[in-house]
Every structure is written in C-alpha cells, then in structure tokens.
C-alpha cells in the first residue's frame, strides 16, 4: 500500500471507525486511540490486508473491533461479552436528553450485541458484512441483533411510548 493509498483509506474510513469505537467504548479518548492503533497496524503491516478476502472497510472494522474487544476485556466493564440472558433495565428519563438516554441504553448492552447493533443501525452494514467483519456466523449475527433490539425496546420503553407505540414488558 502506497502512501497515497493509505491517505485515501484514512480519509475514507476514519469517521466511520471513530464513530464505531466511540459508540462501543463510550469514550472519545479511547476511540481515538483505537482508530490510531488500527491505522498503525495497516501502515506497518500492510500485508495483513488481503484484497481478495474482503473490502478494506470490513477489514478495518474487524481490526478496530478486535482492538475494542481487547480493551473492553481489560477494563472489564461488563459481565459477559456474549450474554444471551442479559435484560437491560429501562433508562431513567429524568432530566436527560433523548440522545443521552439512547447512549446509556446502548452502553448497557452486552458488547457482542452492542457491536452488532451499532454496525447495523449506525453504519448501515448488512448482516453479511457484519458477519465478515466480526468473524461471527450469520445466524449468530441475526440472533445478536434481534436480542439487542429487544433489549433496547425494553430499556427505551419510556421514550418509545411517548412516540405513540407501547414497548417493553
């Protein structure tokens, strides 16, 4: 990869990777570090990326995702990476912006559900792309997305109700 190609790849994907890392970690500083480390890897070990195995976007998301998971495991801010039985409590809407409540609800999801939801809802990736980027089976991706949405309907029920639809259990 030439310097020009690297520069173009950085300009094209930096915002998407930053948003993903920011939504996964909840920290702007951590997100910046993770995206930096992702491009550092691309710069130093260009051979890691094989064009025939998928798009650069999927590769970079995969690298950022792995770095993020490593960091989350180190910080241990959750019970289990993949917790099928996790039930998120409704967020407290008192004195909060709607965006903040959504952030809190997503932060409460188990990491595997969170990454699937973030990639699907915010980065508009297809299930196949998510499967490729995360290295998970397609069925697992579908299941995580379904559970993530169920959890969010429950935790964001107070907000969804005010929009005219009753959710939650």
């Amino acid at each position, binding site marked *: 990869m030439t*310097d020009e190609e*690297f*520069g173009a790849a*950085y300009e094209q994907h*930096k*915002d998407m*990777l*930053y*948003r993903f890392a*920011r*939504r996964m970690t909840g920290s*702007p500083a951590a997100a*910046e570090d993770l*995206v*930096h480390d992702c*491009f*550092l890897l691309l*710069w130093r070990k260009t051979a890691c990326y094989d064009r025939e195995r998928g798009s650069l976007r999927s590769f970079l998301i995969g690298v950022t995702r792995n770095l993020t998971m490593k960091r989350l495991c180190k910080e241990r801010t959750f019970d289990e990476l993949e917790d099928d039985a996790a039930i998120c409590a409704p967020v407290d809407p008192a004195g909060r912006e*709607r*965006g*903040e409540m*959504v*952030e809190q609800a*997503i932060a409460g999801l188990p990491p595997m559900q969170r990454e699937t939801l973030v990639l*699907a*809802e*915010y980065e*508009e990736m*297809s*299930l196949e792309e998510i499967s490729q980027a995360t290295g998970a089976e397609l069925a697992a991706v579908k299941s995580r997305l379904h559970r993530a*949405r169920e959890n*969010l*309907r429950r935790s*964001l029920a107070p*907000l*969804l109700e005010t*929009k005219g*639809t009753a*959710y939650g259990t």
Partner: protein
Amino acid sequence: MEHDDDPKLSELLQEWHVSGAPHSLDARISKLRRSWWSTLLTGSIRVPIPVSVMIAALLLAMAGALLHQRMTVPAAPAIVPSISLIEFRPVTDLNVRVIPSHEAN
C-alpha cells in the same frame, strides 16, 4: 429491509449523534506517515526534566575539566638549537706553519 424491521426504534436510535474523528487524530496519523529520514531531520524526543538537568550538568563538568586541563599543562621548554657533529671530519693532515706578525701584514 433487514435493519429496518422496527422503524420507530431505528428513528429513536438516530437521536444519538456522534461526531467524526477529531483533528488530533489527523495529526497523530500524519506523524505516523512521515518517512524515517524526515523523522530523523525534524523529529523530537521527550526528555524528562531531571534527565535533561543531569545531562546539562555532565556537559558543563566535562567542559570545565577540559578547560582546567588546558590551563594547567606546563609550558613547553624553549628549544635550544643543537649542533650535530655527524658530518664533522677531523683534519687528518695537519701542517702547522707559524707566521710572524710582520709577514701577515
């Protein structure tokens, strides 16, 4: 659509906005892309203050010692011209002749 099976939830989720990558990241990445010779010419390193003070003190001490050494070196003795007798050939055939003073004039 596979992602839009709950439009109301999706709409609500879009209320959480996250801005793009900050400029500080651009600066870090451009630093990363500099070539090694460019880094060598324009790069900088961080040195903790105690270490830099120690290095400065060491340099000062070395300079002082060098100066002191130069000042205390004894002056070189004056060079006395010497005469070599290597090519001196003593006279082998000596014929003494006495010249009286009135003949010399």
